[in-house]
C-alpha cells in the first residue's frame, strides 16, 4: 500500500469517529496539561528565575553583559572541549554498545541476564566514587598507572563511556530484540554476506534507536560534571563545570546565565538534528519477537566485544569491591558491618542502611511519577496530527520534555530556592521535591522508550476499535496498553535506576534527616576517619548490588521488550 492510499484510508476511517475538529485540540491540551504544568513549575520556572538574575544583574535588563561573556576566550575553550569530548565519547559508546546490544538481546547464552543487569550498574554509581575507583586504577601507583592516563582527556573519555554505554545497549537492544529477522534472512538467502546484511538491512532498521540513544548519551556526556573534574585533574573545564564554578563559588550569575542559555540552545539544536535523523518514512513497524538464538560462529565478534566491555566496566567496579573488603590493609567485612552505624566520629546522622531505605522509597515515587507523566506525554505526542500546526505542537512537546537533560543541576537547584518560595508554590522544604526532581531527570528516558512503540501502532487498529463501539479509553486499553506494557516496565526499571543514582539535584534538595544513599556516600568519602573511606566503598557496592537486583527483577517482569528509543 502506498503512503497516499494509506493516508486517504486513514482520513476516511477517522471521519467516522466522533472527534470533532474542536475537541481534538482540547483533548490534546487535556492530556498534556498535567505533565506540562509539572515541567512548568519544577523546571521552566526555576531555570527562568536563575536566568532572570543573570540578565537583570543590577535591576535593569542588560543582555549585552551576558553576551559579552560568550566572547571570552576561556568560554570558547570550554565550549570546544565540551563539544569534542561529548562527541567522541558518544561515538565510542555507540561503537562499543552496538555489538553488546546484539549479543545481549538477540542471542541466548548462560548468564546473559546477569551481564545485562550488570552493565547497567555504572549508570547508577555516584561519580565521586567511580572517580576514585578510576583513579586508583589509572593513578601513578595503580595497576594501569603505566598507561599514564591519569589527568588526561583520555581518562575523561573512558569515564564518560563507562557511565553511558548502558544507555546504548538498552535502547538499541530493545529495538533489535523485536526486529523482524526475515528481511535479513531473505537478503542472506539472496547471497548477501553477514556484513552486507548488517549494513543494508539491520542498520537502517535500527537507525531511529541508534540516533535516540546517541542523542541522550551526548546530552549526558555534555553535562557530565564529576567525571570531568575528577579524572581530568582540573586541567579541563566543560560548560557544566564552568556553570558550577560560576554559580557556587564566584556567584557570577551573568556568566552562568550566558552559559545556561548556550546549553539550552545547544540542546534544542541537537533535538532538531536528532529528530531529522531519527525520522523514518513509516514509523509503523510490524513487531515480531524473534526468539533469541544460540550464538553461531558469526557472533564471535559480538561476544568478544561484549566480553571486552564487561572487563572495562568490571575493572573499576572490582577495585571498589576489593577496597571495600579491606580494613587496615587486611581482608575484612568490617566496612560492611559498619554500614549500620553512623560512621567513625558520627560522620553521618543516619546509618547507611537507613539511607538505602530512603533511596528505595524515593525511587518508587520517582518511578511512578516519571512513568505516569511519561505515558501522558507519549500518548499526546504520538496521536496522529490533522494539521501541520498540530504536528508542530506535538513535536514541540516531545522536545520540551528532553530539556531537563541539558540543564545544569546547580542552576535548577538554586532556581528552586529562589522561585518556589511563595504560596501556593512554597515547596522549598516539601518531602516530594526530591522524587519530583529525579522524575524530571528520568522523564526523557521514559518518553524516549515509549514514544517509538506508540508511534509504531497502526492507527487503524484504534479506529477499528472505535468503529466497533469502543470509547477512547477502551480503545487505549485494548489497543495501546498491551503493546506498551512491556516497554513501560523497561522504562520503569530505567527510571528506578536513575533515581537510585541521582546526585546533583538530590544533594541540593535532600533533607538532613532523610539523605539518600549517594548523598551519604559523598559525605563519607569527604570526611577524614579511618573507616569512613572503606564504608563509602562498601556503601557503593551495596548501591551497585541493589541496582543489579532491581534490574534482574525488572528483566523477569519485562519478558522480551518491544520498546525502542
Amino acid at each position: 500500500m502506498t503512503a497516499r492510499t494509506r493516508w486517504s484510508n486513514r482520513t476516511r476511517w477517522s471521519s467516522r469517529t466522533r472527534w470533532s475538529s474542536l475537541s481534538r485540540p482540547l483533548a490534546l491540551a487535556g492530556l498534556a496539561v498535567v505533565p506540562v504544568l509539572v515541567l512548568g513549575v519544577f523546571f521552566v520556572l526555576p531555570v527562568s528565575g536563575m536566568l532572570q538574575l543573570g540578565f537583570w544583574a543590577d535591576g535593569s535588563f542588560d543582555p549585552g553583559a551576558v553576551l559579552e561573556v560568550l566572547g571570552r576566550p576561556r568560554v570558547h575553550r570550554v565550549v570546544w572541549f565540551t563539544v569534542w569530548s561529548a562527541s567522541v565519547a558518544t561515538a565510542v559508546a555507540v561503537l562499543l554498545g552496538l555489538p553488546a546490544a546484539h549479543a545481549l538481546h538477540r542471542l541466548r547464552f548462560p548468564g546473559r541476564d546477569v551481564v545485562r543487569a550488570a552493565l547497567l550498574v555504572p549508570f547508577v554509581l555516584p561519580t565521586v566514587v567511580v572517580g576514585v575507583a578510576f583513579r586508583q586504577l589509572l593513578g601513578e601507583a595503580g595497576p594501569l598507572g603505566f598507561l599514564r592516563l591519569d589527568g588526561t582527556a583520555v581518562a575523561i573519555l573512558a569515564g564518560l563511556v563507562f557511565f553511558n554505554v548502558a544507555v546504548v545497549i538498552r535502547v538499541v537492544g530493545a529495538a533489535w530484540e523485536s526486529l523482524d529477522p526475515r528481511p535479513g534472512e531473505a537478503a542472506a538467502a539472496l547471497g548477501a554476506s553477514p556484513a552486507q546484511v548488517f549494513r543494508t538491512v539491520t542498520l537502517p532498521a535500527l537507525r531511529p534507536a541508534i540516533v535516540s540513544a546517541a542523542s541522550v548519551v551526548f546530552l549526558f556526556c555534555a553535562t557530565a560534571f564529576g567525571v570531568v573534574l575528577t579524572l581530568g585533574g582540573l586541567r579541563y573545564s566543560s560548560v557544566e563545570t564552568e556553570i558550577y564554578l560560576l554559580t557556587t563559588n564566584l556567584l557570577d550569575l551573568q556568566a552562568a546565565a550566558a552559559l545556561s542559555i548556550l546549553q539550552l540552545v545547544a540542546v534544542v539544536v541537537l533535538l532538531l538534528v536528532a529528530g531529522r535523523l531519527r525520522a523514518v518514512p513509516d514509523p509503523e513497524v510490524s513487531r515480531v519477537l524473534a526468539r533469541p538464538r544460540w550464538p553461531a560462529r558469526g557472533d564471535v565478534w559480538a561476544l568478544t566485544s561484549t566480553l571486552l566491555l564487561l572487563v572495562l566496566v568490571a575493572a573499576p567496579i572490582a577495585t571498589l569491591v576489593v577496597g571495600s573488603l579491606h580494613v587496615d590493609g587486611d581482608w575484612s567485612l568490617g566496612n560492611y558491618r559498619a554500614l549500620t552505624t553512623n560512621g567513625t566520629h558520627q560522620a553521618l546522622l543516619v546509618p547507611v542502611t537507613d539511607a538505602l531505605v530512603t533511596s528505595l522509597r524515593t525511587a518508587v515515587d520517582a518511578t511512578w511519577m516519571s512513568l505516569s507523566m511519561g505515558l501522558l506525554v507519549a500518548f499526546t505526542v504520538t496521536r496522529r496530527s490533522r494539521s501541520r500546526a498540530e504536528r508542530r505542537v506535538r513535536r514541540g512537546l516531545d522536545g520540551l520534555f528532553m530539556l531537563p537533560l541539558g540543564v545544569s543541576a546547580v542552576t535548577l537547584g538554586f532556581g528552586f530556592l529562589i522561585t518556589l518560595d511563595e504560596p501556593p508554590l512554597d515547596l522549598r522544604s516539601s518531602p516530594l521535591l526530591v522524587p519530583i526532581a529525579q522524575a524530571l531527570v528520568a522523564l526523557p528516558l521514559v518518553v524516549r522508550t515509549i514514544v517509538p512503540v506508540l508511534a509504531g501502532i497502526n492507527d487503524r487498529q484504534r479506529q477499528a476499535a472505535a468503529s466497533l463501539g469502543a470509547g477512547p479509553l477502551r480503545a487505549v486499553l485494548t489497543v495501546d496498553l498491551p503493546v506498551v506494557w512491556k516497554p513501560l516496565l523497561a522504562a520503569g526499571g530505567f527510571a528506578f535506576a536513575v533515581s537510585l543514582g541521582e546526585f546533583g539535584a538530590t544533594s541540593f534538595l535532600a533533607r538532613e534527616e532523610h539523605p539518600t544513599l549517594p548523598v551519604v556516600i559523598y559525605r563519607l568519602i569527604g570526611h577524614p576517619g579511618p573507616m569512613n573511606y572503606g564504608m563509602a566503598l562498601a556503601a557503593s557496592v551495596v548501591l551497585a548490588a541493589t541496582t543489579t537486583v532491581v534490574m534482574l527483577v525488572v528483566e523477569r517482569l519485562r519478558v522480551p521488550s518491544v520498546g525502542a528509543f
Partner: protein
Amino acid sequence: MKSSRALSALAALTTLGLTVTGCSTVGEESSDTSTDSSVVLVTHDSFVLPKALKKKFEQESGYDLVVRASGDAGQLTNKLVLTKDDPIGDVAFGVDNTFASRALDAGVFAPYSFDEPAGAADYALPGDDDHRLTPVDNGNVCVNVDDTWFADHDQAPPKTLDDLTDPAYQDLFVLPGAATSSTGMAFLLATIAAYGEDGWQGYWSKLMDNGAKLTAGWSDAYEVDFTQGGGSGDRPIVLSYDSSPAFTVPKGAKTSSTSALLDTCFEQVEYAGVLEGAGNVDGAEAFVRFMDSPEVQAALPESMYVFPVVDGVKLPSDWARYAVQPTDSYAVDPADVAAHRDEWLRDWSDITSR
C-alpha cells in the same frame, strides 16, 4: 473489558501495596517544616550535631531544631545571598572567613551580640563592626607529610612553602585545586599571604613545574594519591588539615605516621549568625549562643574535625596528643578575598592548566 478490569485491579493493588508497605514517601509527615515552635538552621553538609546535644538545645530553648544542610561553605553562602529577601531559615552556621564578606556585603545577617565566652572574640571577623557573625570553630589548612615515607627514604621532609618548590621534592606533592575545593582555596590564600598579591603567581609556576599534582577535591588527594590515605597512593606530601595527624595513628603506636607542616597553614574560622528577616529571632539567637556553649565546643573536634574557639575546652585525647595547631598562620583580609576572588581564581586556573 477483561484487560481493563485486570488493569484497574492491578492499579488498585499497586497503590495499596505501596501505601501499606511504606514503599513511598507520599503522605509522610514533612518533619522539617518550620512552625512557630521551631528554629530552622541552614548549614553546609559537613555539619554534624550529636543527637544528645540536639535534644539538649530543644529542651533548654523550647524550640524544635530543624536542620537544612547541603553543599559546601561556598554554596551555603550563595544560597543565603540569593534568598536574602525571603530567608530559607532563621539562623545559619558554616559561613567561613573566606566567604563571610560576601554574605555581610549582601546584608544576609542581622546584628546580634551577647556575652561571648572567653576566647571567641579572638576569632571575630575583621571588619564585622556590628557583630553580625559569631565565631564557632576554627581549623587550619596545612601541608601534611608522611613521616614514615620520608624515614624509609632517608630524606628530611619539607618544612616551608619554599621547600615545596625544591627539586628534592619533585613529584611528591598532591593538593586539591582552589577552584573546586575550599581546602584548595585556603592554600591559594596562604600563598597569596606569603608571597603578596603580585608574587604568588611566580610561586605557583614553580610549584607546578616541580610536579605538584592537582585533584578535584580533598578526598581525591588524600584517599587516592597520598601514601597514608585509603588507597595505595605514591605521594607523601598532601594538602590537608592540622587535625589530620590525629587520624593516622597506627594501632598500638605512640606517634602519628603523619604530621602537619605548621609554617604552611591558613586559618579557617566558621561563624554562626542570625539571618536578617528571620521568622524566629529568639530561637535563632538561642542557637547562636548554644553553639558557643561548653558542651557543643567540646563536641566539635569529634563531630566536625575542627577546634573550639572558646578557651579552656578539653580536647579529645587523640587530638590533644597528635593534632598540633600552628601558633601563627597566614591570613588574608576577608574584604580582599571578596574583592579579588574572581580575579585570583582566574589567574590561578591559567597558571595551573598551562
